[in-house]
């Protein structure tokens, strides 16, 4: 059984942000677990980037033929026990794990916030997240540096480019042992780094990482909340002051669409 996250009004069709019609042929699955919150936002981001968003249900055994998967943010299973710990055992995660580790041409997977936590719990990405140093939930606009612009999810950025996207979580402190951290650095697998201020104590200011093959990426901040003018952060790394005008996150979604078309 696969059911869309119920809506009161269904998604309104709105014009695709992309002129390249071919991107619309790319199907990006967005997974909903019980307690997932940012699924509709991730779907909107895919659509604004020009692609086609497909809703995936955690209890299904079928990836519905999608070309890429986003595990969105939220509090799946309430974040009880540990963030992502229970979701990791969902039937759909078996499909995702198998498809994401399948060698060349493996499924591109992006985990955002809770999705990143699920990916570490599922051992698709190393390390783990513990409580923020402040012990508080923290919501703020966060500046990041794109350290690796060669992944499937970051190719629309230039290496070293800075972006501003919202950050919102309680368990956002990335930790791993020193050896793993060295390995991540050495292999260029640190994809995003906090700049100016480390909001939660993450080791080596790491905000996002990839697996060795580069198809699986996880990050704590929320690029899907910086894709639509008027509903993003107040600022952009491009410097202008604009009311909720920041769309620096859109590149994540256009990156994977273009890669999959190209």
């Amino acid at each position, binding site marked *: *059984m696969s*059911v869309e*996250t*119920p*809506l*009161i*009004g269904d*998604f*309104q*069709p*709105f014009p695709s942000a992309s002129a390249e019609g071919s991107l619309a042929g790319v199907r990006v699955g967005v997974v909903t677990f*019980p*307690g997932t*919150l*940012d699924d*509709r*936002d991730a779907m*909107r981001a895919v659509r604004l980037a020009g692609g086609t968003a497909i809703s995936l249900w955690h*209890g299904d055994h079928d990836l519905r033929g999608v070309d890429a998967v986003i595990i969105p*943010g*939220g*509090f799946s*299973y*309430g*974040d*009880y026990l540990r963030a992502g710990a229970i979701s990791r055992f969902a039937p759909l995660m078996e499909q995702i794990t198998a498809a994401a580790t399948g060698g060349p041409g493996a499924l591109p997977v992006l985990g955002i916030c809770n999705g990143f936590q699920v990916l570490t719990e599922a051992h698709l990405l190393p390390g783990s997240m513990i409580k923020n140093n*402040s012990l*508080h*939930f*923290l*919501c*703020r606009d966060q500046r990041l540096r794109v350290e690796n612009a060669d992944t499937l999810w970051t190719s629309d950025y230039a290496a070293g480019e800075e972006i501003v996207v*919202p950050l*919102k979580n*309680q368990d956002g402190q990335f930790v791993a042992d020193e050896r793993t951290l060295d390995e991540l650095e050495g292999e260029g697998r640190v994809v995003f780094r906090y700049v100016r201020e480390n909001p939660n104590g993450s080791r080596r200011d790491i905000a996002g990482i990839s697996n060795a093959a580069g198809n699986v990426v996880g990050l704590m901040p*929320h690029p*899907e*909340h910086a894709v*639509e003018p*008027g*509903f993003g952060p*107040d600022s952009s790394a491009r410097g202008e*002051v*604009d*009311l*909720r005008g920041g769309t620096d996150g859109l590149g994540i979604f256009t990156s994977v669409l273009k890669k999959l078309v190209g």
Partner: protein
Amino acid sequence: MSKKFNIDTVANAEATPGQALPWAELGLKQNEYDRVVEILGRRPTGAELAMYSVMWSEHCSYKSSKVHLRQFGDKVTDAMKEHLLVGIGENAGVVDIGDGWAVTFKVESHNHPSFVEPYQGAATGVGGIVRDIISMGARPVAVMDPLRFGAIDHPDTARLVHGIVAGIGGYGNSLGLPNIGGEVVFDSSYQGNPLVNALAVGVLRHEDIRLANASGVGNRVVLFGARTGGDGIGGASVLASESFDDAKPSKRPAVQVGDPFAEKVLIECCLELFKASVVEGIQDLGAAGISCATSELASNGDGGMHVELTKVLLRDPTLTPGEILMSESQERMMAVVTPANAAAFEAIMDKWNVEYSWLGEVTDTGRLVIEWDGETIVDVDPRTVAHDGPVYERPYHRPAWLDGVQADSFQGSSPDLRAAVLELMSSPNMCSKDWVTNQFDRYVQGNTALAMPDDAGVIRVDEATGLGVALSTDANGRYSYLNPYEGARLALAEAYRNVATSGAKPLAVTDCLNFGSPEDPEVMWQFAESVRGLADACQELGVPVTGGNVSLYNQTGGVAIHPTPVVGVLGVFDDVARRTPSGWREDGQAIYLLGTTRDELDGSEWANLRGHLGGTPPVVDLAAEKTLAAVLVNSSRDGMIDAAHDLSEGGLAAALSEAALRFGVGARIGIDELCERDGIDPFTALFSESQGRAIVSVPRSEEVRFNDMCTARNYPTLRIGVVDTENSALDVQGHFTLPLDELKEAHEGTLPRHFA
């Protein structure tokens, strides 16, 4: 299998008329108990007593406030009803916002539980109001949280602030509801009685409105969501000892613990039920739990219901029937489903892994009959439980001390203005609330067009057209203390002005009336005056009250809180892209002050900082507020202004500081012409809290048009300065210059200093 209780059946009640019952321990008065006996024509059973006692409590029956609250209905004109789809009396009111869309919104209190257990009290407060919204058939889309704490440096305040803020965030963030605004006020009158009000707003299509009623004889009644535990029935354990046979009852929890995850699942599950059209009516379970849900559903429908109580899934198997009826366990809902839809209902429950139990069915007997193991333990006319509770005309009178207080006007000597602005902006009530609001998710759902620290929260409803709503909540306990009638009108005026400042057209009102004990005639007077003031003001502004909540007995010992009528105003936007932020952005834009400034410092934040509370609050002129709102809404729609910020607590000094800090853009301001025009000194110009005022920034190209509009509407307007992006300072020429860095540090340092 049900536990063996020595239960009190209807047959037993008839057979043992002389049996003493613990009605007094359950909070009933002698006359109330006598009335129950009269209604039933016999003594109640233990279970019936449980139902009547909770449903006739102040909290559920509004027995002290009802006679006053009627004015909200009585003073509604036909014109005000234009946008009302569902008015007062349902779980929440529903307002038409056009294009077939409707919104439902309501504010409620969770004050007492939050004092006992701040985190869980605040969390379950959010949970409760969100269930009200779901039960109307709506998808919740945002929450807000008006809060009041005791003095910032009191030893108990940090405990409450930490717990309550974390609880609001812990629950709301986990539900995926953006928090788009609220209030944080510190005042020693709330020391033993913090106020935790929570507002939720939801969105639905007109055709999806669901009313909580049980109609259709033979339709089935189902309870779903969390299991029923002993939550919230602490005081009712007298019932347990009455009827329990073999073992001692387990302990009853003193507080309720919320499970936001269960509620998030409940939201999605209910929306799927609505979408699939498999429920006829739906009712949330809050205070008074199953007693409330069954009696309200039955009396609002065909009038009868038959329930087998042993079917209720329990978390604690030692609960007695009376306790089950009274339990306030969270995250539960009750629905009425046709037999034909039962399987579809079950499939949706199974998909979301939600537990449910079929309790009974709708009947046409006019009776609510509840059985326990085949024996009748409740047989009542549900209307007598849900609607015919006692109504009191409590005595009230104007406090004798008020004359003295009102005569004691603020007499301050003019301070150094620069230092005064810094002091004001770093004070507990005027400082930045970022430390609080950064703990709330304002982005989730992707529809937040405006949020903290702007004047109103703005949510897009329709992605295709940009149709959306704006919301603001306001109250000023000091104003209400000085004059409760005017205080309530001032609260409405401010919320209305905040919504209009954001560019939305105000449409409807919700309110949460927080007061002391109604048994104190002086408090009762404050209450009566507040309701009268709010109802009158709603009529004058043409915005109806659609629902709300009353919270009484907010006092410690004999000392009541300041009367605090929290007012929430909802406004509508054709396109949220037109919303106006509070801060300046563009160099060279002209800054205008709208409205007239009088010497009105009584009850002000400045007087408060000097430890003074006396005199009379600022004058409210609602006709002027209406004109101001029209100016603000029209100039936003026609693109004449780029920023707007209303003047309220802290006056012009606060508004200028906030407009500058919003985007870190300064301005050059001149106040001498203002002083001359309004006949005031610079100190009054900056700190007076006269109403009906706002500052706006106008692009050069729009100045003529903007001035013409204000002149046409005959609204006082004065150009007081220009936006200055070059010089990062608030420069009040001839008086002082405040570098924004210094102002920001003063503004943002206060809460972290006390609580981080």
